[in-house]
């Protein structure tokens, strides 16, 4: 397994600059990003700027098409024991706040109380779709973003050194991402469709055995699987805000090919304030797979997602060549930029055409744009014909709404996407 890679104090100094301790009394400052200023209490600046690893010039890594923001966490019930952490990925494809521990090179230094179950620490192992995984304790924090605040929220702290990682975690075959180089962020703000990250499956047992491999109770004997009531699972902090709690909106400017950095907004609530109405947006209700249907070149894909945490379009088209250069392996590399279209359909019958472009990744990541962070035409093959994944480029030039399950909105209860 990969270990934490950080040596030397210079990098720690850089991280120190990302971290601002605040008094938490004046509405929480934004943490130093040069994003558009909007004073509304439900608007938080976001930026596509490569994130924390971009600050490490020695790493030569870039993290394109990732939107970052800052979040303030406080010891529950206090206003003096707080930390504002920048460089947190805004992810509509997951649920819950996850912060990288300083053990992993992350910014979090604030000590927070650990969630316990049966008197023992509760930990979580999360596997991503690509088989990579993260691990660490569930801790409790007051979470403050813009002028919104949620009290005593179970969050996930990523820490390789917390007890011993269970064997099951690595069963997806991917790397552990409990270090800054692998995660590419100081944390993940999961603002997806659900109120908890796991839900009923993690609260249930079969024959006394927990159904899931997500939550673990840890003691001197090690960590073993445990079922966890919904309220103690890692929570979507938005759903716990006293208001503006039925979903989020992501607004990012259009990008024509490539941009060095772009700035936008994460807005809380749908139709709860004068600045977050649905307007003319079309609502796409979700099917039983929590997905929409995308039709592309006569392929009907009923497992399609809109996900700000994926950094390009992922779809299958055998007519588009894949990159042959190793430094961009895994992306599409058509000889000229392709202008394409697809149709999205919601379970409620909404249908709409989306136009998008696919460019040559080897051109994007060489020459004058090689250090840019926003690419509107970046795409990669994923050849299961059920799935079209609309990653962050889909959000460029759009206002995209994600409504949370079971919460009332002017267009009915979530979950849905609208744009």
């Amino acid at each position, binding site marked *: 397994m990969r270990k934490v890679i950080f040596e030397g104090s210079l990098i720690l100094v850089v991280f120190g600059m990302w971290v601002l301790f605040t008094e938490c009394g004046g509405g929480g400052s934004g943490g130093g990003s040069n994003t558009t200023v909007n004073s509304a209490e439900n608007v938080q600046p976001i930026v596509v700027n490569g994130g924390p690893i971009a600050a490490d010039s020695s790493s030569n*890594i*870039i*993290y*394109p098409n*990732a939107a970052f923001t800052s979040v303030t966490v406080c010891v529950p019930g206090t206003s003096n024991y707080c930390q504002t952490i920048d460089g947190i990925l805004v992810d509509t*494809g*997951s649920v819950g706040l996850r912060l990288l521990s300083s053990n992993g090179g992350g910014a979090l230094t604030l000590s927070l109380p650990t969630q316990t179950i049966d008197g023992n620490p509760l930990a979580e192992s*999360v*596997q*991503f*779709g*690509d*088989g*990579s995984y993260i691990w660490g304790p569930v801790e409790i924090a007051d979470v403050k973003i813009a002028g919104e605040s949620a009290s005593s929220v179970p969050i996930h702290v990523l820490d390789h050194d917390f007890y011993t990682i269970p064997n*099951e975690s*690595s*069963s*997806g*075959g*991917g*790397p552990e991402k409990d270090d800054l180089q*692998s995660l*590419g962020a100081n944390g993940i703000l999961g603002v*997806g469709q*659900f109120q908890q990250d*796991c839900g009923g*499956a993690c609260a249930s047992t*079969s*024959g006394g*055995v927990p*159904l*899931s*491999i*997500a939550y673990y109770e840890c003691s001197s004997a090690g960590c073993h699987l445990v079922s966890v009531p919904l309220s103690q699972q890692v929570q979507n902090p938005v759903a716990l805000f006293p208001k503006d709690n039925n979903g989020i909106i992501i607004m990012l400017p259009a990008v024509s090919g490539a941009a060095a950095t772009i700035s936008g907004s994460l807005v809380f609530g749908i139709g709860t304030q004068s600045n977050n109405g649905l307007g003319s947006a079309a609502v796409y209700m979700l099917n039983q*797979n*929590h997905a929409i249907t995308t039709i592309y070149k006569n392929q009907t894909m009923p*497992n399609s*997602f809109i*996900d700000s*945490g*994926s*950094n*390009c379009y*992922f779809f299958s088209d055998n007519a588009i060549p894949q990159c042959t250069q190793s*430094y*961009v*392996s*895994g*992306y599409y590399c058509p000889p000229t930029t392709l202008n394409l279209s697809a149709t999205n359909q919601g379970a409620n019958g909404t249908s709409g055409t989306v136009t998008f472009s696919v460019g040559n990744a080897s051109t*994007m*990541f060489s020459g004058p744009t090689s250090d840019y962070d926003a690419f509107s035409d970046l795409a*990669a093959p*994923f*050849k*299961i*014909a*059920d*799935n079209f*994944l609309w*990653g962050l480029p889909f959000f460029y030039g759009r206002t995209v709404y994600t409504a949370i399950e079971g919460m009332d909105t002017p267009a009915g209860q979530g979950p849905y996407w609208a744009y």
Partner: protein
Amino acid sequence: MGTSKQFIVRCLNMRMLLVFATICILTLPIRASASLGDDVGSVQADQARMKGVQRTTRTELYTVHEIKASEGTVVREYVSSAGKIFAVVWQGPFLPDLRQLLGGYFERFSQGSQARNNNRPRIRGPILIQEPGLVVQSGGHMRAYFGRAYLPDQVPKGVNIEEIR
């Protein structure tokens, strides 16, 4: 209202299945690490390991063993007429144990996955590993995972890979 009786029967069935599964795991500790590319016997090991319910369907060219695990994830194993598992497909709320499902091909997939993670421009989203003789795709997120792995050289002639889903 027969629901409570049905519930009890289902519970008993699940308990018996669990006992059966435990016995299988205890008696077949080595078999439990085989799958893709293996012979049809390893389907039973997977069924035991996943504590799942199995359903079998046949076509002219292959047999599909579908295992639904207790937590809801469905795995389909495609077996050729020669008795070899040439493809596995999964979908559901949890990622299945790929170490188990991919068997001897797991390490190759894992190495490809590690290499991708070190790309200079990071790629974040579902993974596609294409190597001579092996294709693995895995994607999704918590509560909704999906993926497919197959051995291109062992897909029976006449089978369109798009029907393996």
